[in-house]
């Protein structure tokens, strides 16, 4: 055993060999200590920077910000920190993942420590710099994975809109928020009319395409804060935060028009030549009232309004309105343009090619003259106001 080095030279060795950058500056930002880590990565030798101003040697440093950061430590005698997540690096250093890392410079976590001098006052600030490149790479991978996971678990795989799980989660959250702040909240449920016959006539692939296109159209028509999800089958729910019943009624009826006004062209079809499928929807909506118990109640109310739309002849919007004194508010206005149901495919004979019966949706809607209607149905304290056309 050789003689142990004295404590001070031992410290010197450790400071030089440790894989942490260590810099000490005084009040004027002159460098007092610069360890080997700093020397190696910056390619500035210790003897060339000691007693020199840090900012003169590194003009790339974010001077204003860093001066303030150091000043904070002197004034408040307080630790201070920076994280690669918000400020990727302080010094432009190479890192140990130049090929596989995907990061330009070494990611750095820095700590600023107040150091007392002989006077007992803070005379120096020690900056320690940790290489966080590896951490940042893993963290980014993790973030990507979480993002994918969140997307997969919140999204309906067919249509790409939110799934039922996420819908209910969001509705419960929005419900609590609206209730707490006394803000309005509305919910719309809609169901594609005669969806089964689309599947029966054109096949399930076409049905899928219709679901996709329908949710796309609705999604485009919504605001950023609105939440659209597939509730199941051909049933969808739209959450409208900060929206009262009357505004929601107008929005909902606009959504109805988005579907009915223009047929969906099923372009992938091999049997029919790009059939144009007119899809309509029946909608029901409700808004949160002071006495609304929970979000499930809202779904039930919207659903019962949807039922009124179906009963009333489909392709219409009904709002659920609870009136305690029996007074009735005026129905909202809508001006839907009439549209044919299923436009005949460009080849004339559906029946010849597929052995299926003529479609329900065809016979039921084609012959009816479209006209705007508004209807009031009173059922106890609930008034259903329907707009649509037949």
């Amino acid at each position, binding site marked *: 055993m050789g003689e142990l080095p004295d404590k001070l030279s031992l410290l010197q060795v450790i400071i030089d060999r440790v894989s942490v950058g260590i810099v000490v500056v005084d009040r004027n930002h002159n460098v007092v200590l610069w360890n080997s880590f700093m020397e190696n990565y910056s390619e500035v030798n210790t003897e060339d920077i000691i007693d020199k101003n840090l900012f003169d040697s590194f003009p790339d440093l974010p001077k204003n910000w860093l001066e303030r950061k150091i000043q904070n430590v002197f004034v408040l005698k*307080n630790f201070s920190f920076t994280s690669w997540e918000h400020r990727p690096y302080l010094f432009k250093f190479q890192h140990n993942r130049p090929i596989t890392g995907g990061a330009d410079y070494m990611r750095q976590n820095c700590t600023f420590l107040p150091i007392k001098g002989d006077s007992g006052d803070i005379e120096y600030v020690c900056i320690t710099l940790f290489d966080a490149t590896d951490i940042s790479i893993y963290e980014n991978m993790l973030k990507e994975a979480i993002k994918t996971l969140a997307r997969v678990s919140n999204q309906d795989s067919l249509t790409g809109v939110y799934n039922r799980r996420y819908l209910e989660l969001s509705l419960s959250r929005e419900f609590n928020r609206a209730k707490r702040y006394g803000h309005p909240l509305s919910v719309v449920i809609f169901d594609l009319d005669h969806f089964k016959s689309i599947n029966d006539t054109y096949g399930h692939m076409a049905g899928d395409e219709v679901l996709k296109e329908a949710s796309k159209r609705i999604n485009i028509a919504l605001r950023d804060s609105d939440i659209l999800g597939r509730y199941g089958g051909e049933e969808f729910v739209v959450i409208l935060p900060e929206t009262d019943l009357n505004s929601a009624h107008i929005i909902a009826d606009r959504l109805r028009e988005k579907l009915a006004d223009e047929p969906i062209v099923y372009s992938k079809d091999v049997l029919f030549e790009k059939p144009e499928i007119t899809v309509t929807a029946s909608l029901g909506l409700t808004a949160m009232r002071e006495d609304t118990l929970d979000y499930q109640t809202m779904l039930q109310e919207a659903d019962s309004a949807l039922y009124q739309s179906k009963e009333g002849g489909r392709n219409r919007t009904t709002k659920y309105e609870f009136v305690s004194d029996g007074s009735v508010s005026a129905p909202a206005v809508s001006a839907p343009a009439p549209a044919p149901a299923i436009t005949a495919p460009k080849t004339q004979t559906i029946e010849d090619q597929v052995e299926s019966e003529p479609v329900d949706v065809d016979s039921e809607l084609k012959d009816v003259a479209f006209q705007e209607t508004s209807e009031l149905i009173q059922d106890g304290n609930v008034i259903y106001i329907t707009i649509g056309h037949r």
Partner: protein
Amino acid sequence: MSEDFEDLMTNEHYEVLTEVVNIGMGQAGDSLARFLGVFIRLSIPRIKLVKADDLRKQLVELVGNDVEVTGVRQAFFTHWYGEAITLFDQGGSKDLAKLMHYPDDMDKETEKELFLDVGNLLSGACVNGVSEQFGIELNYSPPSILSQNVFVEDLFAADKMAWTHSLLMEVNFSMEEYKFKSHLLIMMTEESIETLAKDLERFMERY
């Protein structure tokens, strides 16, 4: 176990601690005010021994539960072990940005950095303010975001607490001409309550 902790700190201990924390926080408020160039109003610190099961209820009592908050946490260690948690009211970030010379048009990441910066500033000043009264120097971990835009009652998951008792000190800040308000919670571990009780004994002998 629980009685042990309740017995560790006598009424006299609490009285002295309240006094010391009051002085420490006052000094912290002073240096923060000088640093930020605004008048800072600090509440009288409140100190409680809390059980993990009661924490939510206690926090709601101290802080209220009417607005969503963003929480920044930071560990302090060596002599005492614990975490300082700064709670910012939602919507105060514009004011904070002005105060800290951050740009007006912050993106989400910059806003986080701002919260971390101010959280570090407030908790560092206050914990230091208290530890200095005892002549103790502490170390600090980097701050991190505890949660963003949640109601106070949802800040902690009670079933995930690895402790049963904690000493909780609460102080709140408001600044003249600025809308935002923030709360600082200093929470110490069970072992540190014992240490603190001894520190208080020594403190009382000295004065």
